[in-house]
């Protein structure tokens, strides 16, 4: 899932300082699961903003709604009849959701309440770890299911480098060497030949926003 972290309260307060009526829009998918921007987090943030602005003698009226997904047009429709009643929208969705909301209501200021952080896994309640950088050229089939782009400090497609040090990375003794882990796992699976395959480097530079159209579908001429 996409993992996000709520922005510092003072930053959010400062973004909203000029608005008197704000609709806080939560997202019920990734950011709800990672406890950053679901229905409950919307309620907590609204309570905080309400109290802080009252203390400053500059009250704000906070509205609350959480849609299933902000990155999906069909769920944004529910907001169409609401947004006109507000000066600004605060979004607790990931960066994609925030932009989709801003695109739908270009006349309204749409402000972020979270920092989108990574694609990761749930290690425990409230504890998430990064696992994927969405590089568009997955090599997990050759690396024993361990992503070298994410887990190696240098993001090396081919490794290990000369900085591997008894299982750890040269940048920090507490940082495991991804390529050491890959070696150990491939060895246990008797697939060490995979490590010898050379993967061409990814063209990270000059990246433009990517588009995916799944097989059997096509981009409609008009949305």
């Amino acid at each position, binding site marked *: 899932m996409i993992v996000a972290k709520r922005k510092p*309260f*003072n930053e959010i307060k400062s973004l909203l300082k000029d608005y008197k009526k704000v609709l806080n829009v939560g997202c019920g998918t990734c950011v709800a699961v990672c406890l950053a921007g679901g229905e*409950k987090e919307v*309620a*907590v943030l609204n*309570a*905080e903003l*309400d*109290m*802080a602005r*009252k*203390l*400053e003698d500059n009250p704000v009226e906070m509205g609350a709604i959480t849609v299933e997904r902000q990155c999906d047009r069909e769920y944004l429709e529910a907001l169409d009849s609401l947004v006109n009643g507000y000066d600004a929208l605060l979004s607790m969705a990931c960066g994609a959701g925030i932009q989709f909301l801003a695109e739908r209501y270009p006349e309204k200021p749409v402000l972020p309440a979270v920092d989108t952080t990574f694609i990761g896994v749930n290690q425990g309640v409230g504890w998430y770890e990064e696992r994927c950088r969405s590089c568009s050229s997955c090599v997990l089939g050759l690396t024993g299911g361990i992503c070298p782009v994410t887990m190696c400090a240098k993001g090396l497609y081919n490794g290990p480098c000369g900085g591997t040090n008894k299982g750890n990375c040269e940048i920090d003794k507490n940082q495991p060497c991804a390529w050491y882990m890959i070696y150990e796992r491939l060895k246990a699976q008797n697939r060490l030949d995979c490590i010898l395959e050379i993967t061409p480097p990814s063209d990270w530079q000059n990246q433009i926003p990517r588009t995916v159209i799944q097989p059997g579908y096509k981009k409609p001429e008009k949305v």
Partner: protein
Amino acid sequence: MRLDYPANIKIIRVPCTGKVDLMYLLSAIQKGADGVYVVGCLEGSCHYKEGNFKARQRVEQARALLEEVGLEGDRVRMYNLSSGEGPTFAAYAKEMTEHIKALGPNPLK
């Protein structure tokens, strides 16, 4: 026991302090309560194993959020006692009341 404790305290019963949501604590202060305290079972004695630990975490979170907002985090506290400790319950009620009186009324009122 016919123990006295301050009459200004309103008791809200929950089946276990693990049921106390962060929003219960924040809403109370938001609506003008001068203070909120959660009275849970002794640590290690929770019938549901960790309800009172969860409550303590939420109390800590509420305190931190109130400080962020500009209010005294110490308006929210957690106490622990066993259900057989009536006198301790009354003592905590008095302690909390005196503590809140010293802090003064909730400025949101």
